[in-house]
């Protein structure tokens, strides 16, 4: 009778059920299982090593997913399966394995009162598993919570530990060595984004080899970033490497990127090759197949994204009513290019209605009443013909502020002069 799972309590050193335990109690069994599972090194059963040789057919017109390709022995994404069992993989006890009182991190906790920072269920304590007492864990926890980057060696240590123990299988990720801090490494790529690019390329006839190579080089760049972070933990302030999908149609190679918090990084790193194909940035105006246009707003900085202008619809009831001064007027200025398009549509779709008075203060709906209507004077430049840059002249101080309160956070990218 084969028991399937290893007993975590036994591995920790104390299982109250002993031989009667329904989980496996032997390290020998572990090796046996390992050998059995060896052929299953790739647990998902895909990426077959004996995949069909590379074929390319582009006749699958009727299929929405036209690419057909075999696989190669894809090695770079796979991790070796070392089958190391961590004693307490979840950081807290699990129902099934009936933790004995001492072993589980929380099992022994009788108190129901949560004290601040008494979190025991985070990673810093769990690695030590059974040996940590609650007080030790608490000390570790408060250290983790209060991390400040004062000592590069300490930061390096955390990064090294993370890269060794907390290394996720997906590599194209941002990273911060402390949970409260912004990213040390930016340039997130999600599964769907990578897949969308691959599908798009396949649709355009790019062959599998190129797709795989592009993905691999992306991966290598990211791995290099992590390595250099490890050697120089404070490098992020100089070289955060923004995501390739940043809305820049120009695929430039590693130009010195701006500060990490810039919402619209104007330059891209060596991942620039991904940028255009991701088509994340300001796309060409889509075909107007639909009865309405897709209004676009011109960029405020050379590379900002174009949100659509948003005259507030008359039917959008009062919950968008103004609640005090917000820098909203900044965000929705007209541009001479689109205003022609806008005005006709606006006049037909959005007749001024009494409800607009709710928005009159700084909401852009005032624009429907014509360019001369300025609102509360926060920004005098809401005229179609005004250069967009001038919108910031009144409120430029917001960019000089160190700390923003909720509600003040500007929606737009800062003008060029504020980009560090």
């Amino acid at each position, binding site marked *: 009778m084969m028991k399937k799972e290893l007993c975590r309590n036994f591995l920790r050193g104390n299982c109250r059920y002993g031989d009667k335990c329904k989980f496996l109690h032997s390290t020998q069994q572990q090796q046996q299982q390992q050998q059995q599972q060896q052929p299953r090194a790739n647990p998902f059963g895909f990426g*077959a090593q004996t995949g069909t040789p590379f074929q390319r057919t582009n006749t699958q017109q009727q299929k929405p997913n036209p690419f057909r390709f075999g696989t190669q022995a894809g090695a770079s*994404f796979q991790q070796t399966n070392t089958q190391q069992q961590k004693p307490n993989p979840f950081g807290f006890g699990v*129902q099934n394995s009936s933790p004995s009182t001492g072993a589980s991190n929380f099992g022994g906790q009788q108190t129901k009162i949560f004290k601040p920072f008494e979190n025991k269920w985070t990673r810093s304590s769990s690695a030590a598993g059974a040996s940590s007492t609650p007080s030790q864990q608490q000390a570790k926890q408060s250290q983790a919570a209060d991390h400040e980057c004062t000592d590069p060696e300490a930061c390096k240590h955390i990064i090294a530990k993370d890269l060794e123990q907390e290394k996720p299988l997906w590599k194209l990720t941002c990273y911060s060595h402390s949970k409260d801090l912004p990213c040390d490494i930016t340039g997130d790529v999600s599964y769907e984004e990578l897949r969308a690019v691959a599908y798009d390329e396949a649709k355009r006839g790019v062959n599998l080899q190129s797709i795989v190579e592009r993905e691999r080089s992306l991966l290598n760049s990211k791995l290099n970033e992590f390595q250099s972070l490890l050697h120089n933990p404070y490098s992020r302030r100089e070289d955060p490497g923004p995501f390739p999908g940043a809305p820049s149609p120009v695929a430039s190679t590693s130009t010195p990127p701006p500060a990490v918090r810039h919402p619209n990084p104007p330059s891209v790193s060596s991942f620039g090759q991904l940028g255009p194909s991701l088509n994340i940035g300001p796309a060409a105006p889509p075909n107007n197949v639909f009865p309405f246009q897709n209004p676009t707003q011109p960029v405020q900085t050379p590379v900002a994204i174009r*949100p659509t202008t948003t005259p507030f619809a008359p039917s959008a009831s009062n919950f968008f009513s103004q609640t005090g001064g917000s820098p909203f007027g900044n965000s929705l200025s007209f541009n001479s290019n689109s205003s022609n398009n806008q005005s006709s549509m606006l006049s037909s779709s959005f007749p001024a209605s009494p409800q607009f008075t709710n928005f009159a203060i700084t909401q852009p709906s005032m624009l429907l009443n014509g360019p001369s209507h300025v609102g509360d004077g926060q920004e005098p430049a809401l005229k179609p013909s005004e250069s967009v840059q001038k919108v910031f002249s009144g409120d430029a101080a917001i960019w000089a502020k160190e700390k923003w309160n909720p509600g003040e956070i500007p929606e737009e990218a800062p003008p060029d002069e504020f980009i560090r």
Partner: protein
Amino acid sequence: MISGESNAAAPAPMSTFGSPANTNPNKSYEVVQPPSDGVSSLSFSPKANHLIATSWDNQVRCWEIMQSGANFNSTPKAAIAHDNPVLCSAWKDDGTTVFSGGCDKQAKMWNLLSNQSMQVAAHDAAIKDMAWISEMSLLVTGSWDKTLRYWDTRQPNPVHVQQLPERCYALSVRYPLMVVGTADRNLVIFNLQSPQKEFKRIVSPLKFQTRCIAAFPDQQGFLVGSIEGRVGVHHLDDAQQGKNFTFKCHREGNEIYSVNSLNFHPVHGTFATAGSDGAFNFWDKDSKQRLKAMTRCSQPIPCGTFNSDGSIYAYAICYDWSKGAENHNPATAKTYIYLHQALESEVKGKPRLVAQTRK
């Protein structure tokens, strides 16, 4: 458009790649006529057992699910197509209409009664996630163009465009709370009573890429899942910050898989996680326990969802691109959608126990 006849309940799947247990070790019911490519989202109607799946094969499909006890039956009902892979879906609260959006940068509104669909939203880049806010009668869409847009489906222009710090990766709405997770670990919290300003913007309590978000049903906070096999439980109220914690999950030895889906049970307030390791688990955050661990399937689970009364947990098994293009073999890749009967013992919260008796 699929207008299939009713099929008999499928028996245990006859998989040609290894034993049936490999693809369905939990013996879940297999939904008939699954998509031909990966599933990106699953969504049950709030009013009936109608299941929507959006897929990388550009289709949005609808099945009717019948349940009697532990037995299920599924009937394909209808489908619509987009021009590009579809990434997200949402139901209108009356259960008549489905919204879907994806790589074609549009969202479509599909009235199931009339089987008509029309475009209701547009972005400058793919729409990654969306939600229907019934209290506002608006659809909110989050996109890789770094904006959130609110749409009144009768109007062609968005009611409001909200800039995000980065590309939207996930969003979750429990009125009036909305939490949006973006790239580079930003979490933006909105009070939908004043949606044009961010209520709060925080950095994720997790160290790696945000993958999924679920707001608490009681709006006190939210869950955030990342690619590092970890879920963060975060409360909004400063007074409750002491209750915040993170826990590890979906890890196997040294391999750390991502948490792809977080779903709260509609009744019990417990939640399910589904990961790239092919497992799904049920958890109770209040007693900090795992209620049930299901057996790992041979492929990742990219998404899961509960039905309206929490009796069914639907999940998809297909490749999620977690290992890149080279590990995608469309010739052999199979997609499954499974229905798991969510037993009370698995999804009902339990008080924390010091010692337990074995049954």
